[in-house]
């Protein structure tokens, strides 16, 4: 695969997180656009590429938003792939810039959270979900993921205390990230273990809180970013694979296994050399699958791995092995803002690698791995993607 040289990501924006909001998806997408234009010091007319991800735009599409926002673009994309939308948008936009199809691409994910909108999204998520998953208890994503979690715990002897390691360290990170919706609350092991049950082994703090919010970043040439004096991040390698291991009767691995070795080879960086890892944490078991499939530990060893690993951003935990993980608190502590959740790991990585993080800055963060997962079409997440990112020296 051709590399991504000459292209950078810049101007990360995360805004508007709220449990409920009177605003629609277009408000969040447009507000991110406004803030990234301001942050980059460019004009709206400079943006000639536009990529949008959202679940709640309804009949409006990306093209409707160009008219709403007065954008004239020569490159347009709508990537409605939930938890991988950030990495997908990044990959597509980087190629567009590399090939000269666009100069500056705005990649944005955003969703509203109107009263009872989550119920509607869950009830009509996909045909297979409507026909063959939702009628069985109408638990939304909690249903299939409680079954995946129960199977993982049984097969690999994982305990709730192992999942707690991920949730507790993420909450610590969120306590230092002002944007996190649950960042003002501390979480202890007994809070975690005594939380009310939701579905099978899943209890309250294993589940993300659906919310409204917007996330986004700009993709442009390295030269343009230098002219604009913008701190930027380059893509060392990135890949994706969807519907891999379809014959596994119940999911305990994802498509990352298909490309992760190539990804590390192309990046010339291994898992032991990354300064942080951002996984898609819709449930802690899914972060564990990613740690295994991305090569941080072997299959089934994630419970042991998280037990000895300190995943706090500042390495202040007791674990001897250090790996800052979901340094803004992830969705488990920030909230899951629909398709914006697929951007959360990317924007957080950009802040970390450009030294723009505030209280939750990972010291000397140079290289980071971000991973995406998503779209429970029926019984499992179908999409996977991963990207190795590196800060550009200034």
């Amino acid at each position: 695969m051709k590399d991504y040289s000459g292209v950078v990501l810049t101007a990360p924006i995360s805004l508007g997180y709220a449990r409920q909001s009177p605003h629609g998806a277009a408000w969040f997408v447009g507000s991110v656009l406004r803030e990234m234009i301001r942050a980059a010091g460019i004009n709206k007319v400079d943006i000639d590429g536009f990529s949008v991800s959202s679940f709640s735009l309804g009949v409006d599409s990306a093209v409707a938003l160009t008219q709403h926002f007065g954008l004239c673009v020569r490159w347009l994309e709508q990537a409605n792939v939930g938890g991988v939308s950030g990495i997908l948008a990044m990959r597509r936009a980087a190629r567009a810039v590399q090939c000269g199809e666009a100069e500056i691409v705005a990649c944005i994910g955003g969703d509203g959270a109107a009263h009872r909108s989550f119920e509607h999204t869950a009830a009509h998520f996909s045909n297979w979900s409507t026909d063959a998953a939702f009628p069985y208890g109408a638990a939304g994503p909690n249903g299939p993921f409680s079954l995946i979690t129960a199977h993982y715990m049984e097969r690999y002897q994982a305990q709730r205390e192992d999942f707690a390691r991920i949730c507790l360290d993420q909450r610590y990170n969120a306590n230092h990230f002002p944007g996190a919706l649950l960042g003002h609350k501390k979480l202890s092991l007994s809070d975690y273990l005594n939380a009310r049950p939701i579905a099978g082994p899943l209890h309250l703090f294993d589940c993300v809180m659906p919310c409204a919010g917007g996330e986004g970043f700009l993709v442009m040439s390295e030269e343009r970013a230098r002219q604009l004096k913008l701190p930027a991040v380059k893509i060392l390698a990135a890949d994706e694979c969807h519907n891999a291991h379809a014959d596994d009767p119940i999911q305990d691995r994802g498509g990352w296994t298909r490309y992760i070795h190539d990804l590390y080879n192309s990046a010339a960086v291994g898992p032991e050399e990354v300064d942080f890892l951002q996984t898609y944490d819709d449930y802690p078991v899914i972060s564990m699958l990613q740690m295994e499939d991305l090569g941080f530990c072997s299959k089934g060893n994630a419970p042991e791995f998280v037990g000895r690993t300190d995943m706090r951003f500042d390495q202040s935990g007791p674990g001897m092995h250090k790996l800052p993980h979901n340094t803004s608190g992830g969705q488990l502590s920030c909230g899951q803002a629909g398709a914006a959740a697929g951007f959360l790991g990317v924007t957080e990585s950009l802040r970390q690698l450009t030294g723009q993080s505030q209280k939750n800055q990972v010291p000397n963060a140079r290289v980071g791995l971000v991973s995406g997962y998503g779209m429970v079409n029926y019984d499992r997440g179908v999409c996977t993607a991963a990207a190795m990112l590196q800060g550009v020296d200034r």
Partner: protein
Amino acid sequence: MNIKDKMRARLKLSRPSLRAEARPPGQRSVCGSQFSAANLPGALQLQHCTDCGHIQYPPAELCGACLGHTLIYRNTACEGTLLAQSQLHHSLWEYFKRRISEAPWPVATVRLNAGPVVIAHLVGRDFNAGDAVQVFSHSDASRSVVLLAVSASANIETPQLRQDIVAAIGLDQPAERQHGI
């Protein structure tokens, strides 16, 4: 009553939680409705591809193996293996909210011996992963067909026996509001 109060009353009445009777989710895709229609006569009917013999679930318009378009609903063996189970304590749907207020609602993932993996209502609580189970279809209180998993020893020979199992977990009746409107 002024407009504001009228609107507020209307909004209140549109809340599922205030309805006298709540039913299971009845929305289905076109393929899902065909699945319901095909399953009314027998214990379990799944799509069989007449080109390659692939048996598939959830229902779709084309064969997921060979992309053939001649799919026929045929009687399928009910036997399978329980892969995972879960007791639901929370639901987004009023019917299940009312049922769960009495007891957690059990669901399971089952691999049918015929091939497909299905999610089903689980009848009973004494199950372990790996147990042999049987899966059959039945209409629920929304007149949509759903799948139920029961122990391998349960007798599901006749429609009446299957109806009795469905009635025992209350799936054929709407969940009623406890304290009136």
